[in-house]
């Protein structure tokens, strides 16, 4: 896997939110094999300094961080958040979210393209959280994005891939661009399927964090992603309408 020139072996990007405890989160990251985790920025108070502890925990994991602009609804907000993230996390990477509708966390592709343009000009390496919209994808690439992260279904819904046709069309249309299914997956088979569709990686959070056993689920997803990718590369059979007996018919004994 190659994101903006960074090589990773794992094809799983994992979120760090919603776990029962920081310790469980750390276990999940380890079990998942993820080399990239998503993080955010929140208000810090001198009293609690909660962010400082979190940051120490993440640094100990020895993984690369991908800061997001979660919750940003305007281009301005998203851009400023990205600028602050770059300084704090010391990385040009940003998972760019410009949310247009609350209930579905629907990306605002118009604002997204605009923000991507601004940030790329400032030297950011943008991972846009987008929809399966082919044309918006084209604009994001023109804006300088070298990765696209379409949603599978609404963040945290666990519905899996709501529009397989749309995601297949996106893959077919941009064979060379690293594509990551971001958001909405619920079970390992969803991730395996995304890989079989030719996607390059998967970004998860809720499905792992909200599992009864997050660390075990993280490992399950990690394995499913490897399996799906391996299946994709091994060249699957063509499905057919009719049955075709696997056991040879020739040479069968006549026992009438």
């Amino acid at each position: 896997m190659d994101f903006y020139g960074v090589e990773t072996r794992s094809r799983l990007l994992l979120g760090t939110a919603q776990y029962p405890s920081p310790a469980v989160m750390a276990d999940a990251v380890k079990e998942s094999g993820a080399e990239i985790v998503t993080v955010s920025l929140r208000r810090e108070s001198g009293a609690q300094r909660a962010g400082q502890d979190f940051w120490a925990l993440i640094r100990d994991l020895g993984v690369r961080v991908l800061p997001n602009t979660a919750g940003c609804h305007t281009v301005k907000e998203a851009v400023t958040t990205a600028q602050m993230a770059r300084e704090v996390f010391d990385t040009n990477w940003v998972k760019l979210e410009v949310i247009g509708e609350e209930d579905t966390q629907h990306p605002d592709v118009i604002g997204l393209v605009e923000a991507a343009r601004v940030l790329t000009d400032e030297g950011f390496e943008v991972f846009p959280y987008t929809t399966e919209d082919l044309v918006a994808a084209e604009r994001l690439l023109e804006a300088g994005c070298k990765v696209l992260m379409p949603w599978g279904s609404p963040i945290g819904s666990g519905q899996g891939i709501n529009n397989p046709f749309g995601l297949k069309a996106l893959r077919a249309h941009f064979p060379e661009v690293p594509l990551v299914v971001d958001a909405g997956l619920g079970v390992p088979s969803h991730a395996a399927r995304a890989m079989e569709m030719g996607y390059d990686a998967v970004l998860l959070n809720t499905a792992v964090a909200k599992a009864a056993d997050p660390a075990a689920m993280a490992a399950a997803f990690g394995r499913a992603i490897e399996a799906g990718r391996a299946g994709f590369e091994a060249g699957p059979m063509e499905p057919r309408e009719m049955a075709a007996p696997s056991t040879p018919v020739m040479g069968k004994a006549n026992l009438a």
Partner: protein
Amino acid sequence: MRIEVNGEPHEIEAASLAEALEKLGLADATVATALNGDFVPRGERDGTRLSEGDRIEIVAPMKGG
């Protein structure tokens, strides 16, 4: 001087943003800052004067998806 820090009103005496951070016990912390909605890089905190009613945002790493 009355300013707003992370949405809360604060009575604070600080000529610069850097000084404010110090008074807030975050001088050494891994944080980023914004003044009235605009990013202020670490290097410019000293030179950034504060005035009555300014809105400061101070953010640090947090979990995210």
